[in-house]
């Protein structure tokens, strides 16, 4: 089974059902989506895309983007989505790093991106589209070209299930993002688990809140398409507005909501949820970070009818643990809910720092193996090797880097991270990447970034700076500088200025001392 075969099947079984709907009103049926993605496939092949290639895209959340995803898959390529809101330098790095053969880009991003790609010596074929929305811009771009070259494209040999379907880039601790390679088998084994766990039907209406470069989108897109359901796209701006989202869940009759906890926390505080009846909402799924229990209790109180699931898993495995939250949540509960048991298609083991499985009930690092686990990181053989460990017999396990404890009831509880990666709004943030960014600032001599749990922010990112002059620097200037290199959600919440950073006895930055400052 290959991912785009879900669309082939849907177009055969449910041709007239709405496949994708945009909040602004545009929509496309399964038949139309199949046809549009076929045409893009043909164009990509004519542009030189071959099976096994990567196809990048920089398109805001839209029907055009969804058609591009399926067009790339049909051409036998792996798609590489970039964050539409990230700086051109970061997106250019990503697309050059995985050597995309072709690129589909909205005109507004084209110039800045081409400049960045040229600096990396990358010259992929580019299909520029006038904008995004309704599929119209993609259609127009394909029309324009087809008028000049009506010859049919060569036949494409289908990829096997172990060929790459997509590469998703996440924050890298050395300062450069790293690409997680995922095959058709990786994705399909997860989508099949979702089918068993959530029993989607053609009557379902899935939210698409997560951006396409975030692996939550795999459940959204492919569960919807596999089952002939509707995918309701939520744009980047609307996705940050709790009131708009709460209204959308009601108006668009969403039945399955999936997102990081932080936007749900904002919706319980600012979304006036009691005013909006959502009788159709049957599932609320959340993943990506710990859901502060006060906000989860509040959400369940305001929306008591759906079933709630905590889904846990890094991009490298997609969801690997899940826990259904018993509702209503007892008022006296003070701990976050567990991450739950390992999903049925995977196996897990909890190991000590030496790599030995721990006694049941002891703390250790959760490691996962099975069909949805990545082969590794694009072009980073050493990092890929280090991400896996042998623990007992059989194939190696992927090290999640998360410390867990198995509760007596068999559910796993999340304890903390092994290293310096945190979650902000559900996105991975390597504190090292923020430090690398700030080290490029001409006035900064030393910087160390810490993170502490915070009631209202989730995680509060604190940059400790020692400037060359010894003086305080302008916060406005620092934030603007960061915005040129890293996405907004990675910009530190607090900056403080030191004459010099405290050091340990081995002359390394004393992070413990800095964390104690709050």
């Amino acid at each position, binding site marked *: 089974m290959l991912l785009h075969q879900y669309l082939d099947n849907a177009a055969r079984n449910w041709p007239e059902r709405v496949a994708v709907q945009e909040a602004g009103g545009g929509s496309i049926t399964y038949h139309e989506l199949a046809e549009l993605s076929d045409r893009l496939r043909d164009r990509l092949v004519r542009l030189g895309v071959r099976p096994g290639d990567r196809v990048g895209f920089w398109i805001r959340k839209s029907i055009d983007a969804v058609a591009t995803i399926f067009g790339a898959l049909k051409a036998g390529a792996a798609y590489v989505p970039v964050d539409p809101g990230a700086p051109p330098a970061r997106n250019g790095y990503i697309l050059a790093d995985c050597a995309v053969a072709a690129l589909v880009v909205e005109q507004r991003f084209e110039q800045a991106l081409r400049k960045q790609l040229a600096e990396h010596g990358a010259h992929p074929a580019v299909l520029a589209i006038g904008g995004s929305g309704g599929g119209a811009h993609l259609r127009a771009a394909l029309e324009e070209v087809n008028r000049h070259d009506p010859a049919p494209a060569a036949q494409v040999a289908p990829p096997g299930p172990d060929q790459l379907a997509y590469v998703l880039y996440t924050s890298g601790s050395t300062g450069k993002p790293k690409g997680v390679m995922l095959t058709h088998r990786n994705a399909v084994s997860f989508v099949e688990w979702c089918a068993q766990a959530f029993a989607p039907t053609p009557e379902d209406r899935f939210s698409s809140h997560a951006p396409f470069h975030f692996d939550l989108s795999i459940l959204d897109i492919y569960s919807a398409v596999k089952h002939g359901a509707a995918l309701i796209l939520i744009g980047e701006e609307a996705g940050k507005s709790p009131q708009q989202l709460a209204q959308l869940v009601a108006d668009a009759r969403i039945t399955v909501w999936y997102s990081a906890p932080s936007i749900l926390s904002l919706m319980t505080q*600012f979304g006036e949820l009691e005013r909006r009846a959502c009788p159709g909402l049957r599932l609320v799924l959340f993943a990506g970070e710990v859901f502060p229990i006060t906000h989860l209790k509040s959400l369940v109180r305001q929306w008591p009818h759906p079933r709630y699931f905590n889904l846990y898993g890094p991009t490298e495995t997609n969801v690997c643990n899940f826990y259904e939250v018993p509702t209503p949540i007892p008022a006296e509960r003070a701990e976050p809910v567990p991450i739950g048991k390992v999903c049925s298609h995977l196996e897990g083991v909890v190991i000590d720092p030496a790599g030995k499985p721990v006694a049941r009930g002891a703390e250790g690092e959760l490691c996962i193996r099975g069909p949805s686990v990545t082969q590794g990181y694009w072009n980073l053989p050493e990092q890929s090797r280090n991400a896996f460990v042998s623990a007992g017999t059989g194939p190696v396990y992927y090290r999640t880097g998360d410390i867990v404890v198995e509760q007596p009831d068999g559910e796993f509880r999340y304890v903390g991270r092994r290293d310096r990666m945190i979650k902000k709004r559900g996105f991975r943030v390597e504190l090292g990447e923020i430090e690398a960014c700030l080290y490029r600032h001409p006035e900064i001599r030393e910087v160390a970034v810490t993170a502490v749990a915070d009631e209202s922010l989730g995680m509060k990112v604190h940059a400790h700076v020692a400037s060359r002059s010894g003086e305080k620097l302008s*916060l*406005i200037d620092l934030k603007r500088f960061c915005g040129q290199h890293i996405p907004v959600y990675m910009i530190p919440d607090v900056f403080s200025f030191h004459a010099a950073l405290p050091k340990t006895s081995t002359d390394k930055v004393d992070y413990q001392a800095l964390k104690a400052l709050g």
Partner: protein
Amino acid sequence: MAQEGQVLDVVKNFILSEFLPGEDPGRLTATTPLMSDGILDSIATLKLIVFLEEQFDIEVEAHEADEEHLNTLHAISALVQAKRKVAPTG
């Protein structure tokens, strides 16, 4: 009714104390881009809106909670002024 200058100062002081502690006030001008430059992220924007509604007794609509209406002190003051003109006197 408050003059635009007064509204601007009140909003400026709120933003400085809440989101830019220790910053030189002279750096935050009437036209400094706030959202597009990453100085106010989406959560800070929500806090700002709550402040504006409580401080000036106005209602900010969902479609006004964006870069077009809130990206500079000047734009924020103009929004507040426009709403106060429309509101009935107490």
